[in-house]
C-alpha cells in the first residue's frame, strides 16, 4: 500500500474513533463499528441487523388491500430502529431488535404477495374484457 495512504487511513480511523467517543456519531452513521471489534460474533451480527432495519426503505404507501400488513411492517421497523439507537451491551434487547427486523421483512414480503395477487387479478380481468370486446 502507498505509505501516505496507509498513514492517512490510520489518521481517518483515529478521527472516527475520537468522534464516536465524543458522541458526534450515532448508530445510523456507523456500520458495524458500534460494538467493539472483539465483541462476540452474535453481538456484532445483531448490531448489523439492527442497523439494516434502520436504513431499510420505508414500506410503500399502503393500498386498501394491504394497509394492515404494511402498517405492521412500518411499526415493527420503527421499533427495531428505535432499539438499535440504544447503547450496546444488552444482548436481550438486541435480540428483540433482530427479531423485529425479521418480522418487518417477512411482513413486507407478505404485502408484496398481496399486491402481486391483486395485479394478477387485475390483468386477468383486463384480458377477460379484451377477449369479450374482440369477440
Amino acid at each position, binding site marked *: 500500500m502507498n505509505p501516505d495512504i496507509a498513514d492517512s*487511513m490510520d489518521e481517518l480511523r483515529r478521527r*472516527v474513533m475520537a468522534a464516536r467517543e465524543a458522541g458526534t456519531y450515532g448508530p*445510523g452513521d456507523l456500520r458495524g463499528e458500534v460494538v467493539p471489534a472483539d465483541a462476540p460474533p452474535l453481538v456484532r451480527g445483531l448490531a448489523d441487523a439492527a442497523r439494516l432495519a434502520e436504513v431499510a426503505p420505508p414500506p410503500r404507501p399502503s393500498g386498501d388491500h394491504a394497509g394492515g400488513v404494511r402498517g405492521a411492517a412500518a411499526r415493527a421497523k420503527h421499533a427495531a430502529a428505535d432499539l438499535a439507537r440504544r447503547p450496546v451491551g444488552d444482548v436481550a434487547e438486541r435480540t428483540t431488535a433482530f427479531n423485529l427486523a425479521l418480522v418487518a421483512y417477512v411482513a413486507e414480503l407478505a404485502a408484496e404477495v398481496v399486491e402481486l395477487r391483486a395485479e394478477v387479478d387485475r390483468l386477468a380481468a383486463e384480458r377477460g374484457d379484451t377477449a369479450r370486446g374482440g369477440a
Partner: protein
Amino acid sequence: MTHARIAFVPPRFGPTVVGGAEALCRALAANLTAHGTPVDIITTCALDHRTWADALPEGENREGGLRVRRFRVGPRDAATFARLHGAIQRRGIVPFDQQVEWMANSVWSPGALRAAREYDRVVVMPYLFGTAFWQQVADPDRTVVIPCLHDEPHARQPVVLDALCSARGVMLNAEGEGDLLGQLLARHGGALRNAPRVVGCGFDDDPVPSADAAQAFARRHGLEPGYLLYAGRREQGKGVGELYDHYATYLRTAPRPRPLALMGTGDLAPPRAIRHHVVDLGFVEARERALAYAAAGALAQPSRLESFGMVLFEAWLAGTPVLVNEESDVMRAHCAHGGGGLWFRDGATFSEAAQMVLDDPALARRLADAGRHYALDDFGWPRVRARFLDAMADWA
C-alpha cells in the same frame, strides 16, 4: 493478425450516453483508430438503458472519427426481462430456463449479429446485455469480451459464465476485476479458453486545468471551488442514495461543510434534508468536464459496482483527490496502490474523510498528485494500446 477487421459492440453509443462501459468503448475505439488500428462500432438504435427504445435511425455514419453502424433492437419483452432481472437480484442463481429467458429478453439486435460476421474480431461489452451474450453464443471464435464485471448475482448465472468461457478472449479493466473473475469461475467450475488480460482504458497527459478556469466554471454554476463532486448516473444501483445519507451526516458534523455538486443525469433526487446544499450541474459536455473536476475539492464515488472506475482517473488527471466506497475492491485497490484517495464505509468515515481532504490542502495536493502519476504511469494510452494489441496478437 496485423490487418484484422475489428468491431466493438456496445449496446448503445452516442455522445450523450453516460456510463463507464460506454465511455471505455468510445475512448478505446477512438484511440486505436487514431493510432492505426481501425475499429468500427456496431450498436443498436437505442440510447435509453431502461427502455431500450429505438431512438436513432438505423444506418451508418461517422462519429468522432469512428464508423458507427446502428441496428434496430430485436423483439423483446421488457416486463419479462425486468421481472427476471429483479428475481436474480433477490434470489441469486435462478433455474436454467429462466437464465435463458432473462437474456432472451435483454437488449439485442439481429442486425448487429449479422453485421458482426463481416469482422475478424468482435469485441463486446459489457457482459450484462444481450448484445454481448448472444454474440458470444452465436460466434465465440470471433468474440472477445470486455465484461466490466461487477460482484452481483447476475454475474454468477451459469449461462453468463459459460458464455464467457466460450469466448476467444476476455479483457479486464483492472487487477481487482481479475480477482473477482477468478472467484466466479472457481465457484462455477469453468475455465476460460485463454488467460484473461488486463487492458483497461487509457488517458492522455493533458495539462491540469488552470485555477482561474476552474474557478470560472464553479462560479458559472453558483459555486466556489472546493465543493464535493459526484460524477455519474444518479441511481440507487450506483450508490447515490447512500451518498445522500453520508452527505447528510457530513452536513451535520462538519464545522465548515461544502456543497455537493452532481454531474450527470438520473432520476434519484436528493432528499429534502440536504437539497439546499446540493447543486445540479446536469450533463456536462466533455470539454467542460475537466473543469468540473478541477474545481472540486474531492470526488466522491459511492458505487460498489465498478469494474474500472473511470471517473477516478478523470478526477486525478484534473488534479482532484477521490473518496471511494471501500466495498469496491477495484476502486479501493486503485487508491491503495496509486495513493490518490481514501475510502469510506459509512456516514462517519465518509464525513471524517471528506473533512480531512477538503480542509487540508496539503493532503489533498499529495493525494491528487499521486493519483495523476498512477493514472499516467499505469493507464497512459501507449501502455493500454500495447496491452490491447498484444492480447489480440496472442489470441490470433
